[in-house]
């Protein structure tokens, strides 16, 4: 097990002002989410219903995928299946090359991030432009998104101004969000008009009707799709919902959980291509069928990618999305990434306070913090834990199982924090003393206080 995550977080937290700013930005979104959900008396019922629909989906997944394929095909849609990221990327390239298309616009899709589609397209000399503003910003910076809903939440407007000055020719030093957004609008409209193919992610795919639902605030997915002659929708197999009317549950939860909006501005439903155009849907497994085998972690396949757990997470808020080194950061990502690729992401479940706030806000009631706890045990059993941890834990176990030794250690520690000089306490091996002072130690232990104060 490496310690890359801890190192990245340590580098990130050096800039305290920036950490505070990031923390507040996300907490602001969490607060908006609270206001919009508290206004809805049926909120808990909606969560419960959504959770049960998604559990049904996981249990019936193969049947629902076949139903979806049958209905989509009847609608004139070409359905493709991909075992993994590589196959998904090859299918996209094959569709585009068969039509001699070398320019494509893409709206937000965490699946194509997971598959690293952009690199693959560029290798085949296909120009791909991300059209969500935040995605375009991170694409121009040659970075990954740091959040699944707010890809550029880690950046300051001045940095975006500098980036746009360099790439879009905006005025040097200009950092007004309105001005920068307008510049991006003009730039992206040119891209929409010159692209003959559009790729989108999928929020929901309806088995009963064979259609896909896409939610955006900018309208960028629809501009792309409706100006192109080839539309390609890429989705993980868990995005299926059974019935058309289930959208009446999920669309009420998604926007409120994500940003506190009562709904996203655009909720589009594509069932059939326009006359004379092509519509493709790619169903991607990429580790999901293996994930589904693991009973303890199966429920995380219910995720609808709203980002609520990320916004509320005290670790994410102060560590930044890039510190996770994973496509999906934050609490849900700390389950999804290591469940599928434990060799790369074994550390992530440990980067959590297990406070449970993620579970409280999840619109489909995934037991996120419980799964993180189980995943820690799973990883500890199957992989090598660093010696510093095993040694300190066995030392701690010896003290905690011997009451007299424990009491002695406690009083020594209290004496030490009061009387030793700073350099003896705040040194490199005391991780708890970095970036913060230890609290003042009381005279008595709780046990001593209780002995003195108990009345009977």
């Amino acid at each position, binding site marked *: 097990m490496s310690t890359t995550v801890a190192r990245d977080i340590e580098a990130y937290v050096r800039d305290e002002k920036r950490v505070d700013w990031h923390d507040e930005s996300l907490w602001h979104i969490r607060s908006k989410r609270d206001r919009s959900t508290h206004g809805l008396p049926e909120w808990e019922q909606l969560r419960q219903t959504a959770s049960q629909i998604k559990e049904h989906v996981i*249990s019936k997944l193969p049947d629902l995928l076949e139903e979806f394929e049958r209905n989509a095909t009847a609608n004139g849609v070409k359905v493709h299946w991909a075992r993994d990221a590589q196959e998904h990327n090859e299918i996209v390239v094959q569709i585009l090359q068969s039509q001699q298309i070398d320019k494509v616009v893409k709206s937000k899709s965490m699946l194509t991030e997971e598959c690293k589609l952009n690199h693959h397209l560029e290798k085949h000399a296909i120009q791909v432009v991300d059209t969500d503003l935040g995605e375009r910003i991170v694409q121009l910076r040659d970075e990954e998104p740091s959040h699944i809903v707010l890809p550029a939440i880690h950046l300051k407007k001045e940095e975006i101004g500098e980036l746009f000055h360099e790439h879009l020719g905006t005025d040097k030093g200009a950092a007004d969000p309105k001005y920068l957004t307008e510049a991006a609008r003009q730039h992206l409209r040119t891209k929409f008009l010159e692209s003959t193919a559009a790729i989108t992610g999928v929020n929901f795919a309806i088995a009963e009707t064979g259609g896909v639902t896409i939610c955006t605030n900018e309208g960028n997915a629809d501009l792309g799709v409706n100006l192109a002659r080839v539309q390609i929708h890429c989705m993980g197999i868990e995005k299926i919902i059974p019935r058309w009317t289930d959208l009446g549950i999920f669309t009420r939860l998604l926007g409120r959980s994500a940003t506190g909006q009562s709904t996203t501005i655009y909720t589009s439903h594509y069932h059939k291509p326009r006359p004379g155009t092509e519509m493709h849907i790619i169903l991607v497994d990429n580790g999901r069928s293996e994930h589904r085998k693991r009973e303890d972690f199966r429920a995380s396949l219910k995720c609808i990618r709203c980002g609520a757990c990320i916004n509320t997470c005290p670790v994410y808020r102060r560590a930044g999305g890039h510190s996770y080194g994973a496509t999906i950061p934050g609490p849900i990502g700390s389950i999804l990434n290591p469940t599928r690729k434990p060799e790369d992401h074994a550390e992530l479940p440990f980067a959590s306070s297990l406070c449970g706030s993620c579970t409280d806000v999840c619109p489909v009631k995934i037991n996120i913090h419980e799964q993180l706890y189980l995943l820690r045990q799973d990883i500890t059993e199957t992989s090598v834990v660093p010696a510093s941890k095993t040694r300190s834990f066995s030392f701690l176990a010896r003290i905690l199982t011997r009451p007299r030794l424990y009491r002695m250690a406690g009083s020594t520690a209290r004496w030490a924090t009061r009387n030793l000089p700073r350099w003896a306490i705040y040194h490199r091996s005391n991780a708890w003393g970095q970036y913060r002072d230890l609290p003042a130690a009381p005279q008595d232990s709780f046990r001593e206080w209780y002995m003195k104060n108990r009345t009977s």
Partner: protein
Amino acid sequence: MSSRSDILARLRGTAVPAVSLPAYPTIPELTQEALVERFRANASAAGSTVISGNLNWSEIISSASPSAHKIYSDGNIDTDKSVMRSFSLPETLSKSHTAELSRTRTSTDNINQPHSVLLDVAVLTSHLAVAENGSIWLTDSVEHRVIPFITEHLIIRLIDYDLVATMADAYDRLDSSLAFCICIAGPSKTADIEQSLVIGAQAARSLTIVLE
């Protein structure tokens, strides 16, 4: 083995206990007045403008876009401006449209290009609105699917419409066999730069809803 059969076989190879589909929650009904009030409040909160009463189309269009030249409407509206009523945007666009984009940005020529992609104002008819989020629905009766997105300003006429309380009610009413339908809950917006709300991201810069 094809990827399809491989994926399905892997999924079928895992026994997952069956979970039945739940019933939907029932939501208390609201009076028509309460629905209208909620619709107006939520539409305004999302940045839309709601208009009713005596309608003067020249004024409505001018207040959405004072310099509007290229105007499209899917129905008859009484205005002193010239309005396109049929829209012959080709299904497949060519490079010439890109050139047109750069021209229109600098040109103030009036509208004599009926094939133009880039509209200043589109006036479209909807028959379904949702109170909880101030949204309206458009279906495949839209002549070209790109119109509500590519237009600079969007005006929606609600005519003979149903105003329902929630999205759940809307999905109940909609025909699930529609080739395309869209729910629009305001002007295009983004907060991707430092969480500052900017209206007019990529699609329509404004949404005016006219109750008829």
